[in-house]
């Protein structure tokens, strides 16, 4: 088959000089390089960083934020956003602790996850079907969810006496925390879902071009809504893990966790404009943020610098993302 134009327009991919391809490669894999450098710096500064105990503790410590980042990756890939995560996380923890006072732990965690899924479904329907801007929707729903948690607890702390309740958050198998195993399991399973299934493919398509996806016969609204439900489930599990770690929960558990979750996804290089990103990026982003936080402690640097560094990294990641988006736009 003759193909006149491809001859004129396609540069020979293999013959391209390394020097020309370098900037592109750095944009794609630079984030991995950053992680490796960070790991090296902290490990050299304090060899205890790579000790088994420290690594396993970090896994357990970052499990809630990491699991939520998995769900957030889906939402952001469709071009969405969810700011209600912090309130949802507190509410789910409160629900787990409340139910866990009188019921077996499994029922408690199940209830928390169910509540998370319900919150996610509400967000998903508002964003995908009613078509309210996700930013506004989730700021609003975040207030509502936080309010529900306050009403439930009347701002008291729910303590759980049942020793079995702590299993999810503090239990270990051969020294490996269950929560850390769950985090890795989520990264792998949902990463696979994203990369290998038709569902994952439609997520990229919807985020990359909503209209083109709709006109291709993809159920765009269902796809968008489903990502919020999935995130809701992750939030439920994250809340359960924290409640279990603390053997207690309260309505204002950790409002700042939303920033950790967003930072992890964005620093990894998943684009806030949707359609571009991957689960391995979230894993790398998680590694970076966790290493920085832990490194500050191990290297004995004032925690005040931590927010400066974290903030700079977010801005740098977004600047990279904007540059990429501009490249896409200019070609349209």
């Amino acid at each position, binding site marked *: *088959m003759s193909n*006149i134009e491809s001859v004129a*327009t396609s540069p020979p991919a293999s013959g391209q000089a390394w020097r020309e391809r370098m900037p592109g490669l750095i944009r794609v894999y630079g984030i991995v390089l950053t992680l490796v450098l960070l790991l090296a710096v902290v490990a050299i500064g304090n060899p205890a960083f790579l000790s088994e105990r420290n690594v396993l503790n970090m896994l357990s410590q970052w499990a809630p934020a990491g699991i939520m980042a998995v769900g957030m990756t889906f939402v952001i890939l469709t071009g969405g956003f969810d700011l209600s995560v912090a309130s949802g996380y507190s509410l789910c923890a409160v629900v787990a602790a409340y139910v866990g006072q009188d019921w077996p732990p499994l029922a408690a965690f199940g209830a928390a996850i169910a509540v998370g899924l319900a919150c996610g479904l509400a967000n998903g329907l508002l964003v995908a079907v009613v078509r309210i801007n996700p930013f506004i929707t989730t700021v609003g729903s975040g207030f509502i969810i936080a309010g529900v948690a306050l009403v439930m607890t009347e701002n008291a702390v729910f303590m759980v006496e049942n020793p079995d309740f702590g299993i999810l958050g503090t239990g270990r198998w051969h020294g490996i925390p269950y929560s850390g195993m769950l985090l890795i399991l989520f990264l792998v399973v949902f990463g696979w879902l994203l990369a290998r*299934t038709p569902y994952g493919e439609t997520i990229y*398509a919807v985020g990359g*071009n909503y209209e083109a996806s709709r006109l291709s016969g993809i159920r765009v609204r269902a796809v968008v809504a489903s990502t919020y439900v999935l995130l809701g489930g992750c939030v439920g599990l994250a809340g359960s893990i924290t409640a279990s770690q603390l053997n207690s929960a309260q309505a204002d558990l950790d409002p700042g966790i939303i920033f950790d979750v967003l930072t992890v996804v964005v620093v990894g290089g998943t684009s806030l404009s949707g*359609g571009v990103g991957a689960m391995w990026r979230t894993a790398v982003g998680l590694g970076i943020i966790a290493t920085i936080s832990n490194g500050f402690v191990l290297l004995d640097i004032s925690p005040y610098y931590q927010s400066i560094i974290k903030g700079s990294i977010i801005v740098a990641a977004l600047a990279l993302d904007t540059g990429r988006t501009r*490249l*896409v736009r200019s*070609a349209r």
Partner: protein
Amino acid sequence: MTDQPILKRREAKSTVAVRVRNVSKSYPGVRALRGVDFELATGEVHGLVGANGAGKSTLIRMLAGAAIPDTGEIEIEGAPIAFDDPRMRRGAGIAAIYQELTIIPEMSALSNVFLGVVPSRFGMTDRRAMRRRFDELSRWMGLSIVPDTRAGTLSVANQQMLEIMRAVQADQKVLIMDEPTAPLGPFERTRLYELIARLKQNGVSIIFISHDLDEVLRLCDRVSVMRDGQRIDTRRAAGWDKASLVQAMLGDVEVLPGRRRAPAAAAEILGVQGLTVPGVVSDIAFSLAAGEVLGIAGLVGAGRTETLRAIAGDDPASSGRMTLDGRPVAWPRSVREAIGHGIMLAPEDRKRLGLVLSRPALVNLVLADLGAVSRFGVVDRGKRRAAATALSERLGFNPGRLDADALELSGGNQQKLVLGKWLHRGPRILLLDEPTRGIDLGAKQEIFRTIRRLSDDGMAVILVSSDLEEVVEHADRVLVMARGRQIGEFAGPEASVERILNLIFAVEDRAVAVGVPA
């Protein structure tokens, strides 16, 4: 009225108004210009022709300062343009009138003409001076536009005149007109020709771009032909004829000869009656046989795209009656319903509506049919690549480009992806909205070759294109629309561009005469 010096009589500083030297420009995936030299003599009308994607638009955008060359230089009356200084570019004395006009519809005709260069006295807007100048210019150009009219309410022709007036009033030495006659009726065209002649007498140099080769040969002093980002040839107009122009534009691309078949005897696949989109399209009816290519011709705004969208289930406000294989079916209310009927639309704007630009070609090809390349809920990568490779062959898409992001591909290759996306699904009725807009001739031929093969296999096709010659060449039957209505139909051999245009303008002119707003 005598020709008083509306334009300042200027001493031509140079016999060459614009000189382009060895200019090249690339965009992601496209080398738009390759070492172009071009010369516009002072006071000449210079025709610029070439197929879509030949590089005309890039060249004129550069002259107008809207794009910056990668290499090479441009001189205006002997002085090189400093591309790093936008003000310098604006002051260079070149005005461009694009197909998409830059009139601000909410502002008055008067304000539009003086946009950015409002005359002032003691720091106050001098409206009296503006009006005086506007009247002068109107008289000179033979216009009768009320200065206070909202520009948006004027006809396209008059909006275009305002743009020209803006250029004249700013005393621009060079005027670039990009397909200025495309939206104009016969009378308005004549008026524009006269104005061009008068501008030329006054020493204005004009670059005139048009797809109407007769018009180019009649109007221009010299004509340059572009192809594949290069200037192929420049001759005096007398040195060209239509055949030699076409030859130069196409190069050695083999042109698919048109096929105008007699009305097919095949069975009806699709019947549509009473198709209405409130306020846009009313009461369209047609029947489509297996293997038939039905063209829909009309001007911009005639309702062609809306008609296709309604049939494709993409307009919930639309209504009508539909039969498939003679059996009535529910009017499609969603894209998925239409797809269920086997009706699929390759939309007009492939970047915005057709493709996921950030994903590889491979993925875009199977986007509408993910289930078919999956097993047990997992995308089977081998199957996907095999399917995409097979499709590439049918489409004339280079399989070596399957892993490139759609973003990096040329317009022609992107269009092949949009077609391919549906081919995998196997439509019974394929709706094509402007399938060849902005793509080069080679790709165009491949697309029509594909369409023909599909229709030979029994697929029915509805083709909408602004390129009337294309519709006449490739459609078995042409349905003509104007102002949202069906105004006529030509069966194969009877269709001609001239007949279609006459029919359309008969309706348009009548509408203008009785004052129906556009």
